[in-house]
């Protein structure tokens, strides 16, 4: 079975790619105006800028409107089950460090059902990027409150509001050990693309929370474009300070909020022994 482990020829580095080289051309199922179009565009631009060819990139996701993204890119992809994208990405990156692994998904996928993988991915610090398209709603299932939904947002399933304090993904990420934490906005694809390139290149687990409006179930989010502003808050190394800062923030400051210097998990080592050596451990001196 050894050939299954053979890495295929890696294309020349520093090729010049255009954003469209990263598009599959498939027509998104997204509603017209959905913020996720902006995230898709940013990812395409960022990868073109980053300069690795599409076949060396794997987009991994869970389930949700946002999680449909891998199908729209010309890279390899893995559209798994709800909430488990980070685990899939972890197994992939740990065995194939030569690939660029980017996990994407929504706030429901990542903070609700996937919450445990989120905190442990931060802690594990595998060298990959996680992009959450946060629209503060379960879009795909037609509008229920997610962990980031405001407590008073009215919906069919929670008339008058769910009444719970929203989950703060950035604070939890920093407290849990993510090595790079930023906030982007789907309405600013250039800024977001820059963040993505920066995050990909930063060693360890990088997390970008993207404000990405759901125009269908949260049309009021179209006002986000007036509320976002660049953050001047970026903090390096001091995660206590960074967490405090993020907890105090209103949630609309964009940019890098934290950068750490933890070394990511190392790739597997070269084989030191053979299976025959292992077998010898069982042999009795006959």
């Amino acid at each position, binding site marked *: *079975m050894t*050939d*299954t*482990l*053979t*890495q*295929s*020829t*890696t*294309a020349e580095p520093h090729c010049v790619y255009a954003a469209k080289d990263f598009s*599959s051309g*498939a027509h998104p*199922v997204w509603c017209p105006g959905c913020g996720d179009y902006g995230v898709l565009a940013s990812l395409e631009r960022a990868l073109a800028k980053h300069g690795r060819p*599409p*076949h*060396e990139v*794997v*987009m991994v996701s869970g*389930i949700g409107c946002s999680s449909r993204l*891998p*199908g729209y890119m*010309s*890279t*390899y*992809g*893995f*559209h*798994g*089950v709800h*909430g*488990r994208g980070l*685990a*899939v*990405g*972890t*197994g*992939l*990156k*740990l*065995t*194939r460090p030569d*690939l660029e692994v980017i996990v994407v998904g929504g706030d429901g996928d990542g903070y609700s059902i996937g919450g*445990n*993988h989120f905190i*442990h991915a931060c802690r594990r610090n595998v060298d990959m990027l996680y992009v959450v398209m946060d629209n503060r709603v379960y879009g795909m299932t037609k509008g229920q409150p997610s962990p980031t939904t405001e407590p008073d947002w009215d919906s069919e399933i929670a008339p008058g509001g769910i009444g719970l304090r929203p989950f703060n993904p950035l604070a939890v990420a920093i407290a849990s050990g993510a090595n790079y934490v930023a906030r982007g906005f789907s309405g600013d694809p250039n800024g977001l693309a820059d963040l993505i390139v920066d995050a990909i290149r930063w060693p360890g687990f990088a997390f970008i929370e993207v404000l990405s409006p759901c125009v269908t179930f949260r049309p009021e989010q179209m006002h986000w474009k007036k509320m976002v502003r660049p953050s001047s808050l970026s903090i390096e190394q001091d995660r206590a300070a960074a967490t405090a800062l993020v907890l105090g923030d209103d949630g609309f400051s964009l940019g890098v909020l934290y950068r750490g210097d933890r070394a990511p998990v190392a790739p*597997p*080592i*070269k*084989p*030191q*022994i*053979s*299976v025959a050596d*292992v*077998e010898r451990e*069982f*042999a*009795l*001196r*006959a």
Partner: protein
Amino acid sequence: MARTSIAVVFAGSGGSGAMSAGAVLLRAAAHAGYYGLMTQLFGAQVRGGESASLVQVSIDPIESQPDRYDLFVALDWEKVEQFAAEIPLDEASVIIADPQAGTVPAGIAKSKGRVVPVSMSDPAATKLERGVQGRRVNMFAAGLVGALVGLNPSDLQAAAEAVFSDKGADIIAANAKGAAAGIAAAATLTLNARLDPPKPAARWLISGNQAIALGALRGGVRFVGCYPITPATDLVEWLAPHLTALGGRLVLGEDELASVNMTLGAAYGGTPAMTVTAGPGFSLMVETLGLAVAAEVPFVLVDVMRAGPSTGIASKTEQSDVNLAIYGAHGDAPRVVMAPISVADCITTAEYAVYVAESLQTPVIVLSDQALGQATTVIDPSDKRPPPLKRRLNGVAPATPFKRYAIGTDPVTPMPLPGTPGFEWVAEGLTHNEAGLPASGAGAHVAQINKRAKKIARFDPGPYWGETWGEGDTVVLAFGSTIGPAREAARRLAASGHQVRIVALRVLSPVPMEALARALSGARRIIVVEQNHGAQLYHHLIGQKAIPPSAESVARPGPLPFRPSEIASYVV
């Protein structure tokens, strides 16, 4: 009387060293050229509870726990009684105990076995030795029994050294002294315990869990995602450093959802991958199992079965996850389910499972059980290996979009590695078209369901479907750890003139219909023996019309292992 085998129990409270005593006896006997089998019994306590090692030594291979034990050695008497039901003794049994440890408790004494008092703690031990060893008399016991069965002192001393090789010199020395005292004491006893001489050959000493791990390594597994769970933990604990040294990796997930999805991620990347669990963890994995079916990502799931449902009895055996393995997961999610035929066969079955998973691009479940997994046994070196089967990586031209899930005559379609230019594809768990894009029409849905079903339906395990022994028109059909006692029952019945045919299934699903029909041909009675309440395999085989409705079922839950006599007495 010539003796070809003996069954010995070392029992005591946790910390008494019962396990080490058993391990030393087994290893010394194996080294001398005997076959042997050791299983372990624990109480609920993590430490300080009762524990016992059950050791059989024989000049022939052993694949079953015995009906009864010949020798019961009490290292102390605290709580040992709780095991009485699990350690059958009778009037012919000999109970060795230190009179200073108190009287034989009723639960043991009621066997009417002969009690032989032996003073085990060394009155001449130095203070240091006592300090190092506590009141432990386990090495004395091991030496005593070893000498009684006829092992030579140097084998016993070497075994003790091997078992304690990670301990300090003080402990090793104290243990050696204890063993020597036991050996010396044996000379003072007259017991019919001496074994016929062994037939030495090159052999392996291995547990079922290690054997699964080895088979997986042979098959090419280089990634394991797991989460600790009894009785599967020692499998991954053994595997972890070996995988690392082989250039692979074992990752502890935050839970089973993580570990199985990590496994899928690694498999997608081209690394043969495995997850290892037991019932509760397996239940958590079935959603992702369905994903692997739909997205056609291969992986091996090893379930070391324990007594269920729910948390059940974590440390004890049962075969009650058959239903889950075959039928667990929503939707039509066909997969391959197999079970090892013996401890030795754990190697073969695991290696074969990897090949089947990789070549069919499908999940394969290996149903081991605690009785196999945590049995340490002497086997002939495993050199017969299944022919390697590989994942189909290419064979088509690049395309945009590349049709990963192409519908054609061969339901197994190329699965290029990420990193290969021109074949970019998305592993997709939604109903998808040939290119892997989500689709919601009936056409794509039915086509892809048929594609996957065909892979499984066409799977022909050839000689790996299972095994048969004997020729009678009464058939005992079994799987996993139940095969050993069934074979032993057949041997005994044959000795008394009853020919019984044993049919051992390796592949439980899809049922190998033709091979099984051949194996059953001419059968007048078919008896399916399994260790669960629901007769899960029996109903599965009836439901698949693989056996006639007149077939009989012998099904009972764990945690007690099937005894050969139990099966034999049902058959006649």
